[in-house]
């Protein structure tokens, strides 16, 4: 049981460390890292390389943004298998709809209740 959590910590932590090292040692900034991670997740999933990482690291692989790419790609492939051509267009967004909608919804509510910090 504990070893499972250790795997999660290892995979999730390493994904963050790689991003931190790239930001520290190249001119890439954080916003670009996020894009790189999502696209990397999509590409690795397409090549079948990310599924083993998810098997091994579980939430450690799905919670970082590469996992967002993984969900997009996996959703697209599954939708294509089920619905054919339409799946190309519906799969990605359907698979990530809950996360995106939660972020928009909670973000909207937060903008109503929370005041921005006073601008200097």
């Amino acid at each position, binding site marked *: 049981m504990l070893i499972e959590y250790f795997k999660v910590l290892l995979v*999730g932590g390493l994904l963050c460390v790689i991003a931190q090292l790239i930001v520290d040692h190249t001119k890439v900034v954080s916003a670009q890292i996020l894009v790189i991670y999502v696209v990397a997740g999509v590409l690795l999933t397409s090549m079948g390389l990310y599924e083993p990482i998810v098997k091994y690291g579980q939430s450690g692989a799905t919670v970082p943004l590469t996992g967002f790419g993984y969900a997009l790609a996996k959703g697209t492939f599954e939708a294509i298998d089920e619905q054919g051509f339409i799946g190309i267009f519906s799969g990605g967004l359907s698979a990530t709809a809950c996360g995106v909608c939660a*972020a928009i919804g909670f973000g909207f509510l937060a903008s109503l209740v929370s005041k921005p910090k006073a601008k200097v």
Partner: protein
Amino acid sequence: MNINKMPEREERLRSVFSEIKEESTPKVDSFSRSLRAFIVGGSICVAAQVFRGYVENYFDETEAGIYTTIMLIFVTAVLTSIGVFDKIGRFAGAGSYVPITGFANSIVSSAIEFRSEGMIFGVGALMFKVAGPVIVSGIVSSWLVGIIYFFMNFKR
């Protein structure tokens, strides 16, 4: 104000700004930044795994994953609203923005920040100022590999 003086003023402002930036940037070496990213990022994933394990008692695997994502985003939204997430972010660096929490934080903090510009042109238009590229690049790339996948599997 003399308009010709503007470039000069700007130049001066820039130098002052870069000085302040230099002073306020914490002098932490790359190793400890990576260590912090590892600990915080890894811990967020472990917390998600614990929550997921608990939820799996009541829902199937896919649903448990969705509830975990929603929980992470909700907690991030609350922490961002009360200003705690900023502090975590400053400490953890990539450890806070690589997990889905960073995605949520970028949307929630943009929504809060641009509330002053109105509901439509502020919140509505600028909520995805930071997270937009992530969504666009993710959708476009998965759409493209979807097209390839479709023609590889259904051509015959």
